[in-house]
């Protein structure tokens, strides 16, 4: 799991004085609203990394055709207890095989991080008051899980004996290396 440090983050929104700008010049690592992206996609250069911030009440199905061109999809948690973006992330990874970054934004708290990791998010922009240390600790409690997830789609019962813990270990190690 990548914890976003906003001061070092390459991604930037394109916002004018009156909100998101309608006409824009493609620049690398632009994080666009869906409206901006739909306006710009016909002219957006293939080699200029672009991301989209996608609302949690929008259908992921409507983004499917754009996914091969996106490097980042930023999903929203307007309130942390609104769990719609977990389903969006799951669909991005599992149904649409999205390989880019799936980032959690909005009201993102420490105790969501395990759920985020398991539904397919690989980056989180924690709310500024949250502790990265506590978030990393929250990823390490469980030896494994019963149901399949974004890290391993197989449920516990479909994994060979002895492999129950492997995905968690691999995952924790992967997290440590970032």
């Amino acid at each position: 799991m990548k914890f976003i440090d906003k001061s070092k983050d390459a991604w930037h929104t394109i916002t004018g004085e009156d909100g998101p700008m309608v006409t824009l010049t493609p620049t690398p690592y632009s994080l666009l609203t869906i409206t901006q992206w739909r306006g710009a996609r016909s002219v957006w250069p293939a080699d200029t990394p672009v991301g989209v911030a996608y609302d949690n009440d929008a259908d992921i199905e409507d983004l499917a055709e754009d996914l091969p061109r996106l490097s980042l999809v930023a999903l929203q948690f307007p309130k942390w207890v609104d769990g719609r973006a977990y389903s969006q992330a799951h669909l991005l990874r599992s149904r649409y095989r999205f390989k880019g970054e799936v980032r959690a934004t909005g009201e993102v708290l420490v105790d969501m991080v395990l759920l985020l990791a398991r539904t397919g998010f690989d980056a989180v922009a924690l709310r500024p008051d949250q502790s990265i240390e506590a978030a990393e600790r929250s990823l390490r409690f469980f030896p494994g899980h019963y149901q399949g997830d974004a890290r391993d789609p197989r449920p516990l019962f479909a994994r060979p004996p002895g492999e129950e813990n492997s995905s968690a270990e691999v995952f924790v190690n992967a997290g440590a290396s970032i």
Partner: protein
Amino acid sequence: MYAYTDFDKHFVRQRAAQYRDQLERNLAGTLTDDEFRPLRLQNGWYIQRHAPMLRIAVPYGELNSTQLRALARIAREYDRGYGHFTTRQNIQFNWIPLVKSADVMELLASVDMHGIQTSGNCIRNITSDCFAGVAADEIVDPRPYCEILRQWSTLHPEFAFLPRKFKIAVSGAHEDRAAIAWHDIGLQLLKNDAGEVGFKVLVGGGMGRTPVIGTVINEFLPWQQILVFIEAIVRVYNRYGRRDNMYKARIKILVKAEGQRFIDDVNEEYKNILERDLDGSAHIITQAEFNRVESHFKVPTGVVADENRLQIPSDAPASFQRWLERNVHSHQIAGYRAVTLSLKRTGQAPGDATDQQMELAANLADRYSSGELRVSHDQNLVLPWVKESDLFALWEAARAASFATPNIGLLTDIIACPGGDFCALANARSIPIAAAITERFEDIDELYDIGNIDLHISGCINSCGHHHSGHIGVLGVDKDGSEWYQITLGGLDGSAISGGSAPGKVIGPSFAADEVPDVIEAVIDTYRLERNAASERFIDTVKRIGLDPFKTAANAQRRTTAKAE
């Protein structure tokens, strides 16, 4: 019953450790009370009127004596000496200080128990028939499926923050003793003509402000597919269920609003999971997994068909005969019976048990029921493996422990929530109403004459006391800061005696608390007057003659409310 694997044990211990971490951050001030709330709820911790309430999961109502003794210890050492068994087959404690909560979670983990998902907007503890695995009318034992569902739903990462709570009930018998049509998902196990096992799947049932009976979404789903199909239902709900108004957030509202489109969406999602998702068939239950889980639910060692049938001593008292009639139930194995230990008696709230009573029940389970018990949806305890030849001895022991009130299925076998005495949500108290009715109908001959009847009491519209499904329902309401009670008649919980599932109908403006026992008595008197035979049950008389005679009798009891209006 299911025995935890090393993985399961490790898992609940780590859940306790995770909870301790959260609690410590809360106590240190880095996790605010508001943000701790959904986390503690998903471990069963509410903040109640006096102290936190802890709701502990009893998966599909199955308990062993060691676990019950641990519950007794929690009652004794951390609470004020009692616990409350609920309509969802769980147990609640009301007086445990929050600072002790992590210790209690660790104690629970040591006996393979937890409070995972007993509250919060997630998939709740799964409920079932309290006679699962022993019922004479069983088609398929639901317990292995319940356990597989329990594991699948435990800490499901996608479905931890649904629009609202989500309850699943499973029945495997001809008689529905789990009120499945009243649940967000109701599952009825069936066998088709080829003898294959499958589920009839209902969706969108629920109580609360808007009582709704579930809609059949699949008549026969092969058992292997159940996790995938439920995933499809819950995903559609998570995406499209309302989040703007908590009173319209249950799946029943979505099912009602969308109708056939909801069913189409679920079927489309189900197909997509299987055909398009990465390893989308991974959650099809394998025969090997089913066999592994099912092997835990074998008949206990030592339980074998026994030709020594019940010998009723010639001098057996009438009260024993009554207990046999009401509290003893038919069984799959010759020479065995299931026995209900009644938690409905004068002087204690419905469903309550003291630490001593829990210890005694655990002893009875060890001595007479292979160490196993069940919690019933009607808030009683059940001993599932009792030899007929032990019944007399068990009756004497149960009587000494105050478990032998022969009132199962009768008027005083009341379902009631804890109500305003404990619950912060309640508008009115339930326990004094239940106590007043229990005292009013203490005469066992009278109770027998009244016969089978479901009386359900909820202290607020959240309907934890299932008032909608009671033949007589009592609902506490708040008007200008005082307690009032709405009475409904004709609710049906789905059991054979009810003959279906339906919400009761309100018989008029609310009554004052002190009028309620008189109203119940007037309603009962009307039934006894109007029934066309002694064998016509209350609910059948209500169905036959309609509500008007009952309304008239009930309204004649108004004293306080007559003056007020």
